[in-house]
């Protein structure tokens, strides 16, 4: 999470955006977007109202979210997705470096 925020901050600093460089949508489009979003909220809240389960959320086992417990699950049941996600992160890093690098002039 922190890494993502720092990435956003770095890009914002790097780009030095000014007021003129970003356009804004017309008011009609904005209104349609807000209405569509409100429709989404109403639909989701309406469907959530059907649920009657509203008892307080209590932690049944105290060590549910501890690192030890989560690590055991992560390295036994989810070992393959864990390894695949490491490859994903590596390829994303290489791709980001390749994309953001300036073009090298070929002599």
């Amino acid at each position, binding site marked *: 999470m922190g890494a993502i925020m720092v990435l956003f901050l770095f890009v914002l600093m790097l*780009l030095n955006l000014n007021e003129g460089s970003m356009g804004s949508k017309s008011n009609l489009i904005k209104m349609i977007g807000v209405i569509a979003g409100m429709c989404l909220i109403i639909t989701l809240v309406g469907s*959530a109202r059907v649920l009657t389960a509203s008892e307080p*959320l209590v932690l049944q086992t105290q060590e*549910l979210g501890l690192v030890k417990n989560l690590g055991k699950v992560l390295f036994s*049941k989810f070992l393959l997705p864990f390894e695949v996600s490491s490859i994903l992160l590596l390829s994303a890093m290489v791709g980001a470096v390749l994309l953001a690098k300036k073009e090298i002039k070929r002599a």
Partner: protein
Amino acid sequence: MENITQAIQGVPLNHYILLCTIIFSIGVIGVLIRRNAIVIFMSVELMLNAVNLLLTAFSVQHNDPSGQVFVFFIMALAAAEVAVGLAIIVMIFRNTNSTDVNILNKLKW
């Protein structure tokens, strides 16, 4: 400190669902009405985090740690997506000097 823990443990599941619905919808509205690519990325991030919160809440509800492990995977995926996306934004900015997504409207066809 003890008071806060007590108060957090008394929050019902429905309130988590409502909060996540509202955060997710703010993300959707942000994607729909903004044209700055960086703000659109932040909105996508908001949607992913709403889902993360819901996953942890349901993980506690069902007493199953798999939900919280899924949150790890979603965070890794979000990091990868943001890294590549921001690199693309930097490249677009270098070429067109703006981050307006409307410049790329030829990608529609």
